[in-house]
C-alpha cells in the first residue's frame, strides 16, 4: 500500500527580480523526495531560505507569491495532486490536507467570528452545523482553550496570540484531515507561551492520529513532536532520519553544526574592579502612559565584562537600553558611568560620554542608512569623534573591516549588497570605531540564523578580549545568555526578579519566574516536553492553566 504523502524529486522555481538586473529564475527546492506514512509526524528543519515552507505548501499544490512547481511529483494516497485540476484541489485543500500558519493573528479574517472560520470547511463537506460546532468545541477543549463553549463567538482580535494559534490548530483539525501542515506555529510566541501551544499541538496530533509535516527552524522544538526529521539547506536535503538518530548521531557536518549550536562557551569572569556602569533605582515611563515600564531597577556592570539582561517581550529590557543611552530620561533614579553621573537626557551628554557608550541593534537592516557605503558608515564616527579624514580615515576603516573579518573590499558596498551576518558585522565595526568602553547589544543575534549568530557571538567575545570593552547584552534567548554572559539580570514586567553571576543565577534555588523561564527553553532531547508538562501539572492545581 502506498504511503500517505509521497514527494518525488520535487523541483520548485521562482522568478527573482534583483534590482537593476534582468529577472532570472532561481531554484528554491531542488530534487527533494520524502515519504510520510499515516499517523506519523515529520519535521522539516532548516534556516530561512532552505525551502521548508515551500515544500510544506507543495503538499497542498500551492505556491506562495509566484512560486512554480517545475518538476517531480506529489502524491497523496497514491494520487498525483499536481495534475488534479481546480476541482481536485478544492477537494484536497482544507479537507484532506490543512494548514496552520506562523502568524495566526494575520491568518484569521478580522471581520468574522472564530467559529464561522473554524467550521467553514466542515460545513462545506455537508456536515450539519450543530455537529460541526460540537466537533469544534471538543477540539477547543482538547487544545486547552479557556471557555471552549463560547470562545468561538469571539472575533480574532479578542483572544491572545497563543490562544489564536490553538484555535488555528482546531480549525485545521476540524474537517478531519489526513495530513496537517504546521508552518512554524510557535515561532512568533514568547518562550513561556510556546511550550503550552507545543504541548497542546502534540496532544491533539496524538489523540486524532493525524499525520503532520512540522516545519520549524528550531531543532529542539521539532525534536519534541516529530517521529522523523528532514534537514534542509539551500533547497536541498542534507539528511533525513529518525529523530533520535538526527539529534543523537547526525551523519552530516551541517546537521552536527545545527545540533551543537551555541557551543560558544564563555568562562565566567568575576567582577573585580569598580563598576563601569551603575544603574541606581531607575523608574521610567513613556509620555502619556500612566504605567511604569521600569520599576526601581538597580544594576552594576564591571569594565570588560558582559551583563546579560534577559526577559520576554514586554519585560522592559529594551526600555532599559533607552534609559541608559539617554533616549528616555528616567522618572526617578540615576545612571552612573565610570564614576560620574550621566545626564538623564541625550542633549545634556558630552561628546565623550556619547563616544564611550555605543549601541548595536537587532535589525542591522534598519540600523544602517541604505544610501551610505560601508566606508561612510564606519568612517563617520572616526571623523566625528577623532577628526580623522582622508587617507588616515580610510586606513582605519580598512583596519576595522579586518577586525570584523570582512576585509577592505567591502568598503564601497551598500548595505543592501551584504548578507544578514555581514550587515551585523558592519554595525559592530561602527560601534568599535568610536573606541567605546561599553556597547549595548539589543537582541543582536535574534534576527540571524543559528550558525551565523554563532559567528557573531564569537566575534564579540574576541573583540572583548582584545579591546576590553564591556557589553550590556539584551536578549530573550537563554542559550545566548549561557554562551556569553558573566553576570545575568532576569527581567519580568519591568522589574529585575533575579540577578548575579551567571553560575549563581542559573542554579537553584530559583524564584518562580526564572524557574518557569528556564524550564520553558526546549532542550534537544526526546521526552523533554512530556517531563516539563508532567512537572507543571504536578506543581499547579487543576484549572489554573493560562
Amino acid at each position, binding site marked *: 500500500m502506498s504511503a500517505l504523502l509521497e514527494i518525488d524529486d520535487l523541483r520548485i522555481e521562482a522568478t527573482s527580480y534583483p534590482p537593476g538586473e534582468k529577472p532570472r529564475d532561481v531554484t528554491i527546492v531542488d530534487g527533494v523526495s520524502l515519504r510520510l506514512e499515516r499517523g506519523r509526524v515529520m519535521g522539516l528543519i532548516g534556516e530561512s531560505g532552505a525551502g521548508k515552507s515551500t515544500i510544506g505548501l507543495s503538499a497542498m499544490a500551492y505556491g506562495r507569491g509566484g512560486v512554480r512547481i517545475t518538476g517531480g511529483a506529489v502524491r497523496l494516497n497514491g494520487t498525483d495532486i499536481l495534475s488534479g485540476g481546480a476541482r481536485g484541489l478544492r477537494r484536497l485543500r*482544507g479537507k484532506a490536507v490543512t*494548514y496552520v500558519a506562523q502568524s495566526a493573528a494575520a491568518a484569521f479574517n*478580522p471581520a468574522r467570528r472564530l467559529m464561522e472560520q473554524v467550521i467553514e470547511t466542515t460545513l462545506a463537506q455537508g456536515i450539519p452545523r450543530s455537529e460541526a460546532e460540537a466537533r469544534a468545541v471538543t477540539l477547543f477543549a482538547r487544545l486547552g482553550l479557556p471557555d471552549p463553549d463560547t470562545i468561538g463567538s469571539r472575533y480574532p482580535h479578542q483572544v491572545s496570540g497563543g490562544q489564536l494559534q490553538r484555535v488555528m490548530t482546531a480549525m485545521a483539525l476540524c474537517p478531519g484531515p489526513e495530513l496537517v501542515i504546521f508552518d512554524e506555529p510557535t515561532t512568533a510566541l514568547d518562550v513561556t507561551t510556546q511550550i503550552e501551544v507545543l504541548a497542546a499541538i502534540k496532544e491533539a496530533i496524538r489523540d486524532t492520529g493525524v499525520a503532520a509535516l512540522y516545519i520549524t527552524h528550531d531543532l529542539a522544538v521539532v525534536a519534541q513532536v516529530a517521529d522523523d526529521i528532514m534537514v534542509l539547506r539551500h533547497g536541498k536535503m542534507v539528511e533525513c532520519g529518525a529523530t533520535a538518530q538526527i539529534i543523537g548521531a547526525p551523519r552530516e557536518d551541517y546537521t552536527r553544526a545545527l545540533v551543537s549550536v551555541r557551543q560558544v562557551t564563555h568562562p565566567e569572569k568575576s567582577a573585580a574592579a569598580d563598576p563601569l556602569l551603575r544603574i541606581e533605582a531607575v523608574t521610567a515611563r513613556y509620555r502619556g502612559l500612566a504605567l511604569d515600564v521600569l520599576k526601581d531597577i538597580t544594576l552594576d556592570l564591571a569594565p570588560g565584562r558582559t551583563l546579560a539582561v534577559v526577559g520576554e517581550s514586554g519585560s522592559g529590557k529594551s526600555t532599559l537600553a533607552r534609559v541608559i543611552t539617554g533616549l528616555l530620561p528616567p522618572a526617578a533614579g540615576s545612571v552612573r558611568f565610570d564614576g560620574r553621573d550621566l545626564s538623564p537626557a541625550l542633549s545634556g551628554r558630552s561628546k565623550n560620554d556619547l563616544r564611550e557608550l555605543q549601541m548595536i541593534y537587532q535589525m542591522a537592516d534598519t540600523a544602517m542608512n541604505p544610501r551610505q557605503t560601508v566606508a561612510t558608515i564606519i568612517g563617520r564616527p572616526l571623523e566625528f569623534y577623532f577628526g580623522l579624514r582622508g587617507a588616515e580615515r580610510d586606513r582605519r576603516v580598512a583596519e576595522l573591516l579586518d577586525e570584523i573579518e570582512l576585509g577592505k573590499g567591502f568598503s564601497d558596498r551598500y548595505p543592501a549588497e551584504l548578507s544578514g551576518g555581514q550587515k551585523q558585522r558592519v554595525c559592530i565595526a561602527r560601534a568599535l570605531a568610536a573606541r567605546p568602553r561599553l556597547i549595548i547589544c539589543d537582541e543582536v543575534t535574534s534576527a540571524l540564523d543559528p550558525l551565523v549568530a554563532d559567528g557573531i557571538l564569537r566575534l564579540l567575545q574576541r573583540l572583548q578580549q582584545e579591546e576590553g570593552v564591556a557589553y550590556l547584552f539584551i536578549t530573550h534567548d537563554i542559550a545566548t545568555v549561557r554562551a556569553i554572559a558573566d553576570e545575568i539580570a532576569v527581567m519580568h514586567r519591568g522589574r529585575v526578579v533575579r540577578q548575579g553571576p551567571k553560575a549563581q543565577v542559573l542554579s537553584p534555588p530559583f524564584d518562580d519566574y526564572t524557574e518557569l523561564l528556564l524550564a520553558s527553553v526546549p532542550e534537544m532531547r526526546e521526552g523533554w516536553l512530556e517531563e516539563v508538562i508532567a512537572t507543571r501539572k504536578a506543581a499547579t492545581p487543576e484549572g489554573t492553566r493560562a
Partner: protein
Amino acid sequence: MQNGFLLKLVVQRIALGCLLLLAASGLIFVGTQMLPGDVAQSILGQSATPQALANLRAELGLDQPPLTRYLDWLGNALQGDLGHALSNGQDIASSIAGRLGNTLFLAGTAAAIAVPLALALGLLAVRFQGRWPDRLISGVTLATISVPEFLLGYLAMFALAVQFRVFPSVSSIHDGMSLGQQFQAIALPVLVMVLVVLGHMMRMTRAAILNVMQSAYIETAELKGLRRFTIIARHALPNAVAPIVNVIMLNLAYLVVGVVVVEVVFVYPGMGQYLVDHVAKRDVPVVQACGLIFAAVYIGLNMIADLVAILANPRLRHPR
C-alpha cells in the same frame, strides 16, 4: 457597553466634522477679508462719490469690527439667510436654492453612473491583474488624470454635439422640461464628469481590493479550498467595505470640484457657474456663501467615509 463605545466614536467624529466646518467658515471669511485697500472702493471704482462709499460701507457692515461681522454672517447663514448679492442686490439664498438643486441633479446622475461602473471595472482589473484588461484600465487612468476637464468637455461637445448633433451643446434646463428632456440636456456634462472621476475611482478601487487580497487570511481561505467567489464574497468584501466607501467618497468630493468647470463649459445653470460669475464680479457675499456650501458638502462626504470606516471596523464594533 459595546454600543456605547461605538456611539462615542461616532459622536466624536460628527463633532469633529462640525468643528472643521466652523473653522472652514472662519477660513473662508478671513480669505475674503484679505483684499488690499478698501472693499467699497474697489467695488465702486475710483470715481465713486464719498457719500456712495459711506453708504456701501454701512451696508456691508465694514464699520463693524471683523469678529462681529463674522459672527453676524455665520449666525445669519445658519438661519438660511446668506445676505444679498452686491452686484444685483438679489437674495443669495433664493438664487442658490434652484441652482444647488440643478448641481446636485447633475453630480448625482454622474455619481449614479460612475460609482457602479468604477467598482465593476476595478473588480475586473483585479480579476485580470497584470493582463491586458488591467493594463488598459491603468493606461486610461493615467490619461484621464492628466486631461483637464475642459478638454474632455469640448472634445465631447465637438464630436457629439457639433459633428454628429446627438446632444445639445448647451445644457440649459428649466422647470418646464420633462425628466426625459432634462436627462437629454445634461447627457454631455454627465458623460464628461463620469470620465473625469472614473479613472481615479477604478484605480483606487483596484488598489483597495488588491490590498485586501494580499492579506494572509485570503491565503488561509485559498488553502481551505474555497471557491474563488466564496473567498471574495465572504472573506475579501467585508474587509474591503471601508476602503471602497472611502474611495467613493473621495471621488464624490472630487466631483464637487469638477462640476465647477463642467458647468461653465456647458453653460449649465448650477452652483459652479454662479460662483465663477460672481468671483469675476468680486461679489464677496456670493463667493462666501458658495464657498461655504461647497466646503460643507466636501467635509460632509469625508465625514461619511470616516463614519463608515469606524462602523465597518470589527475591532471597534466588538472591543475586547
